């Protein structure tokens, strides 16, 4: 397949455009997605190409946007709704957990909606433009949760999200948008849900992570490699469903595991992974499963505080060293 070097942002944008070209049922809605092309310009040029009735500028109404998407989906459409920032999805929480998540189970009618959620911190966005709310949704049965880390996955997982007959929360990490580039196939492809990706191979320690933290883990792993410790970095790619097999296989091989995420620690999805490893790989573990995550506070604005909040390469490297020495 022909590939092209693209930013993570461009991969999402091009992927979405490709889906809209091939399937008339796909349409976009959200605040400022039309004329403005979206706060991050993911839908730039879309309204020109697809017209205003498939690229809808919505009122400042997250519930109307997401519930509206559900209604349209029930009528056979494939809406892709953008939250201007992932943080604002809290305003549609009730709809998502009450209607969208439970609709198929209760009423038998699938709700194929995709929510695009620009998430994550690292640029002084403060408490309301930096959050990673994926763990909250991963706890709600009936929702799927997707967190691509690479341009290639960003495109492939978006296609799968749109194809999927269930509500999908697609978290796109803002700190990767323009920072991360990589080869992206030109043709359409769908990257399967529930399959982790080995971002870096190793046999001494496993790091399980997703989103922007994949790169933090990788940098920490590079440091450890200099010290003779080979760290495997597993990028989960999707949290619901998540690839238990790949995690357990890697842990069985490495015998030591660290779970890393950018969201706050207590009750974060890392706990689910750590608890699963502890239960299922008990016999294989040579050290306690470690978790590294943001501490339990809102995301602070000041750079000095934000740096202390978001897990840093050195924090991860230190924890890996400790684990290696255990």
């Amino acid at each position: 397949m022909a590939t092209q070097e693209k930013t993570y942002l461009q991969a999402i944008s091009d992927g979405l455009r490709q889906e809209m070209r091939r399937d008339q049922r796909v349409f976009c809605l959200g605040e400022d997605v039309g004329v403005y092309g979206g706060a991050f310009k993911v839908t730039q040029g879309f309204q020109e190409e697809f017209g205003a009735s498939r690229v809808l500028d919505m009122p400042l109404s997250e519930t109307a946007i997401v519930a509206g998407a559900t209604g349209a989906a029930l009528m056979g459409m494939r809406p892709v709704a953008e939250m201007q920032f992932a943080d604002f999805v809290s305003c549609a929480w009730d709809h998502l957990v009450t209607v969208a998540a439970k609709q198929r189970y209760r009423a038998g009618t699938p709700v194929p909606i995709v929510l695009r959620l620009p998430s994550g911190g690292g640029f002084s966005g403060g408490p309301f433009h930096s959050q990673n709310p994926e763990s909250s949704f991963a706890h709600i049965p009936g929702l799927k949760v997707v967190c691509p880390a690479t341009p290639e996955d960003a495109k492939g997982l978006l296609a799968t999200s749109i194809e999927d007959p269930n509500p999908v929360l697609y978290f796109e990490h803002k700190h990767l948008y323009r920072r991360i580039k990589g080869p992206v196939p030109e043709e359409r492809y769908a990257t399967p849900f529930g399959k982790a990706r080995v971002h870096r191979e190793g046999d001494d320690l496993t790091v399980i992570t997703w989103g922007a933290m994949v790169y933090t883990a990788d940098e920490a792993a590079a440091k450890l490699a200099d010290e003779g410790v080979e760290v495997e970095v597993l990028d989960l790619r999707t949290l619901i469903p998540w690839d238990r097999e790949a995690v357990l296989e890697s842990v069985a091989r490495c015998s030591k595991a660290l779970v890393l995420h950018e969201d706050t620690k207590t009750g974060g999805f890392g706990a689910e992974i750590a608890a699963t490893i502890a239960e299922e790989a008990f016999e294989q573990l040579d050290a306690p499963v470690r978790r590294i995550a943001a501490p339990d506070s809102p995301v602070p604005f000041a750079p000095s505080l934000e740096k202390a909040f978001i897990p840093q390469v050195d924090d991860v490297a230190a924890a890996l060293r400790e684990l290696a020495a255990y």
Partner: protein
Amino acid sequence: MAVREAEPVETLQEVKEAGLDREDLLSMYRNMLTTRAIEERGHILYKQGKIPGSFYTGRGNEGSAVGVGTAMGPNDVGTPLQRDMGVHVTRGIEPWRVFAQYMGRVDGPTKGRDGNVHMGDARMGLHTMVSHLPAMLPVAVGMALAFRIRDEKRVAVAWCGEGAAARGDAHEGMNLAGVRRLPVVFVIDNNQWAYSTPAHLEYAVDHLADRAAAYGFEGVVVDGTDVLAVYREAKRAIEKAREGGGPTLIESVTLRMEGHAVHDDAFYVPKELFEEWARRDPIERFRGWLRDNASMSDEEEDEITSGVKRLLSAAIQRAEESPVPDPATLLDGVFATPEELETPHHK
């Protein structure tokens, strides 16, 4: 403020102009009777311990529900609520499936996964309510959005209680509908109480239909005990929406003639209010009208009444024969499979 207050319907002529023939009228009457009978029989079954959970009825709202249901076109859709059994009946649900739903059996529309009046058959264009009121209202608006995008001449009907109208979902849905002039009709079942809360603690306007003006469309208040007036207003609003005229907010005024649910004796509702509205019973009212204006005969009436009785007795029996859900199926259908997107409702 100047919302329109709908006139009562007086003569057969007016009804004909609104598009109903005599057969239609008799079948509306049958639907109202069936609706009440389903709920009365359900209540008995509940007391007999055959229905788990709680039990809700829409006594007093049969005319409103049947009136709107009758006005909907075959491809229209809607999201009726806890007092709107008449909508399901009018759109053709078989009563035995309602009882199966009540009893939590596999043949209920939700297959025992949800209970009581949380049901709807998508093949009839009806999408099940959730408890959280009025969470399905903006969903109905989204349905109308799909019709707009695909340029289909279909209409969505969204119900809401006068209490639930206080919630943000009502506002966001109505506002979006107004901004985009979507083909959706809002029906507020104003039965004057929200559980124990009287309307004046829910809103501070004369008529909730006044709200329509805040969203740029038309509002109308109709006497919800007058099935024909409700039908006429709903028909007008639905056809207006279908022709691109945008949304309408219909406030249908009734009294919730029983407690919030069967456990509630409604001690907080003044007795005189019940007495006053008992005299305005929608079924009695329509029966009188049919006899006066459409010369419904004793025989016709008997046939309808006994037909409904037979239907329901058979329905209860059939529902009781429906299997209880197998615990092994507990996790089935939390997620949909791709094939399911090819169901008829999904077109």
